[in-house]
């Protein structure tokens, strides 16, 4: 009785969560590629796309709020205990440091007094990478603190969102690589292998999350039941995880660049669709605890 499905948050918030995590994920992977000195053109575009995706995500939040004029209040009124307030600053710092680090890779910004090769540039990049990691996972805490919705109130949620962010991040990297075709067969194989491992980890985290939720009381079990929809089973699990896993695993045995590009491109699109749907399904499956029973 009085077990109500939340209807407050929907597509706009889900898109914001998805883009924040994807932006953080793609930057983090690009930064690692920079550190490893690998696939420079791909890492350069990935690095700049990270903060841009987060900015686009923020625009969805503005649409949810209904007026961008109110947005300044988020910066002038800080509540330490609120994950939304923390998130605002995590994303802001990430965008500033992420852009400061990534823009130096473009000749138009050669006038900046630092570059990726300098200690200052590396320091800026490390701060940006730290906040990119936080941007990828903080939304898990944002929902995790909601005690009234047991399905969200689980410690594993930030881990799931972090892994999902890395998966969608590597999807962007694969998409760039497929488009530019500059990383060669070995590059595709290495990124593909990383992608399959990340998808596998995400599948394990998702399975663990659902299993924990199923055994954590009637309300969270009801949320799991609500996920038995074509959007979740078909869109998230099948199209968003299992199919790209198979495609990327298969790509490890392929040496033809054209086929590798197609496999990488298709996998990345599917991973991105699955990532967005996953956020939406988890958001919409939130069921509040019953106030009392008969």
């Amino acid at each position: 009785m009085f077990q109500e499905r939340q209807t407050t948050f929907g597509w706009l918030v889900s898109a914001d969560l998805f883009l924040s995590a994807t932006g953080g994920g793609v930057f983090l992977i690009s930064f690692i590629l920079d550190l490893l000195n690998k696939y420079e053109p791909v890492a350069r575009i990935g690095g700049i796309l990270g903060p841009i995706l987060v900015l686009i995500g923020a625009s969805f939040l503005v649409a949810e709020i209904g007026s961008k004029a109110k947005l300044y209040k988020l910066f002038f009124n800080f509540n330490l205990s609120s994950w939304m307030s923390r998130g605002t600053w995590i994303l802001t710092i990430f965008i500033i440091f992420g852009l400061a680090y990534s823009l130096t890779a473009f000749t138009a910004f050669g006038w900046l007094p630092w570059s990726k090769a300098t200690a200052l540039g590396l320091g800026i990049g490390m701060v940006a990478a730290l906040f990119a990691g936080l941007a990828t996972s903080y939304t898990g805490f944002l929902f995790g603190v909601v005690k009234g919705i047991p399905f969200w109130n689980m410690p594993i949620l930030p881990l799931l969102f972090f892994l999902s962010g890395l998966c969608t991040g590597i999807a962007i990297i694969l998409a760039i690589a497929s488009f530019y075709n500059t990383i060669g067969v070995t590059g595709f194989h290495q990124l593909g292998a990383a992608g399959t491992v990340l998808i596998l980890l995400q599948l394990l985290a998702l399975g663990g999350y659902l299993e924990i939720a199923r055994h954590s009381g009637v309300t969270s079990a009801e949320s799991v039941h609500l996920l038995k929809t074509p959007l979740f089973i078909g869109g998230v699990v099948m199209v968003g995880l299992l199919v790209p896993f198979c495609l990327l695993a298969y790509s490890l045995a392929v040496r033809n660049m054209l086929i590798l590009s197609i496999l990488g491109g298709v996998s990345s699109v599917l991973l991105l669709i699955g990532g967005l749907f996953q956020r939406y399904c988890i958001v919409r499956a939130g069921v509040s605890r019953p106030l009392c029973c008969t």
Partner: protein
Amino acid sequence: MSKRYGMVIDLKRCIGCHYCVVACKMENGITQGSWARVDTVGGQTMDTASGEYLNLIMFYLPRLCMHCRDAPCVEVCPTGACYQREDGIVMVDYDKCVGCKYCIVACPYGARYYNKEGSAYFAAERPNEKLGYRPHKLHMTEKCTLCLDRLESGKEPACVEVCPTGARHFGDLNDPQSEVSQLIARKHASQLLKDLGTEPSVYYLSP
């Protein structure tokens, strides 16, 4: 010790007339939804019981903001717009509210509402505005204020005043001699979702 306002609702007395809901809407000039509501505990729809004939269960559960001592809405609000007064009343500062709706999701009692529409059926001034009460703000979160404007003029909340069966009792929870404290102690009043540790200021007497 400062006051801590609270309410005791006697579920045995509540007859589900929704007079409190109407009074709340009238007093506060609410058009969309309501800050107060009365749910039926029993069957799947309003005013229906669960069980079988001669063994039926049904009672009414009036709901409002619980003005929790450890309010989740205050904790999650990114701008500090949700705040708690010294007397325990949880309020929304419209100058700080961004309308992110995080408090609506975080409230385990479903007691918060988003004001997304303008006046739907009040032609010009709303009743609350005529009385000089706080005006509503679009695209912001609203909730029960325990009729703060009435309290400041020495009256009880509208829902308490109009209840035809006297099911609602209002007073200072910090005063052991107050009616509400006496009822809580004497009749073993309970709180909703007590295990969440929110310490609601609204208590219920068993039906």
